[in-house]
């Protein structure tokens, strides 16, 4: 009895394994088409952004940029500290935490500066993500697949720039109905989100929403192309980045 029971269990186990793997094999996708990048798509080896903060005199000047971003991506307006932010403002000492100079001009002591995802060359968020829900694309954009995100928030702990937001509550309750941009989805409860450098707009040949709204005060282009706007701006002006000592190589530069 004992022996036959053992054999039975063995056979049952092996056949269950064979069956499930067989089923899994059969479920493989049969894709009959091919894929390509759109003709109009803007292309780059490494997208980067240069924000000319000298052209913004007050926090109000940044408002159109933030509104354009949050409208384009249906970002909810959640009150309190469980909020969602793709682009936002903070004081100089909060943005550039390494610069501990107490005797700065008023513009820096009191002024506001814009923050967004830095699309790092060495992104810690990508390094820590346990599912590959956040990843680096060939053009340097750090993107997210909200379908795959399990909401573990390791990326939020990992990001040194506080660029990531978690949907603590259902975001739909905090977005107008109909949504500001019906072409773009919203997010769902329990996933992390952040700025995408408007990858969906680049694919259609459009520059990022904030860049368009900035009337030339924010440049966007290929950092690997010496003739690009961003490279020219960086060659002619003094620029800084957030927390450069961490080696993440942020892709967002500030002219100050």
């Amino acid at each position, binding site marked *: 009895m004992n022996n036959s029971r053992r054999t039975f269990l063995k056979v049952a186990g092996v056949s269950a394994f064979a069956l499930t793997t067989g089923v899994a094999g059969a479920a493989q996708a049969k*894709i009959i*088409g091919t*894929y390509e990048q759109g003709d109009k798509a803007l292309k780059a080896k490494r997208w980067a952004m240069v924000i000319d903060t000298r052209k913004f005199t007050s926090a109000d000047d940044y408002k159109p940029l933030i509104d354009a971003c949050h409208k384009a991506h249906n970002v909810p307006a959640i009150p309190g500290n469980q909020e969602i932010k793709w682009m936002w403002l903070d004081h100089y000492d909060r943005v550039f935490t390494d610069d501990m100079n107490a005797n700065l001009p008023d513009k820096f002591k009191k002024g506001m500066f814009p923050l967004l995802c830095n699309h790092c060359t060495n992104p810690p968020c990508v390094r820590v993500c346990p599912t590959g829900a956040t990843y680096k*694309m060939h*053009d340097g954009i750090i993107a997210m697949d909200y379908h795959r995100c399990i909401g573990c928030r390791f990326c939020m702990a990992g990001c040194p720039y506080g660029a990531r937001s978690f949907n603590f509550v259902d975001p739909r309750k905090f977005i107008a109905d109909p949504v500001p941009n019906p072409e773009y*989805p919203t997010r*769902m409860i329990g996933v992390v989100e952040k700025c995408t450098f408007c990858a969906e707009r680049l694919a259609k040949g459009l520059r990022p929403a904030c860049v368009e709204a900035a009337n030339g005060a924010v440049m966007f282009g290929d950092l690997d192309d010496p003739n690009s706007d961003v490279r020219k701006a960086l060659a002619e002006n003094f620029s800084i980045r957030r927390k450069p000592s961490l080696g993440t190589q942020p892709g967002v530069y500030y002219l100050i």
Partner: protein
Amino acid sequence: MYNKTYVLAGIIIFVALFTTPFWTGIMSGSYQRPAVQLPANEKECVEPVEYMRAEHMQLLNDWRDQALRNEARVYVSSTGKKWEISLQNTCLKCHNNTTEFCDKCHISNSVYPYCWTCHIEPKGKK
């Protein structure tokens, strides 16, 4: 074998309960394919209808990965026609009545995808 009658009775009851889906399936007659409402003004989907009926979930899965991860946002179908990869802006532009299209089959097959928690459900339905 100990307690032969109880063991056998137990096994029979278990098997009977375990196979209830099959029994109820057989009893309730043949499966009627739900009458989905196809878009009125469109003749052609991205791929032939048989393929879409069987593989649309795999295709959507692949579309998502190609668009989000490879920046390949154009699908060249087996007939050579190009389509923008987007559930919201391509699929739902024609299939704008989800109750009469998506839900029909999904409900009768007991699958409940949660697309509309993120993607905007078209207002085409009445």
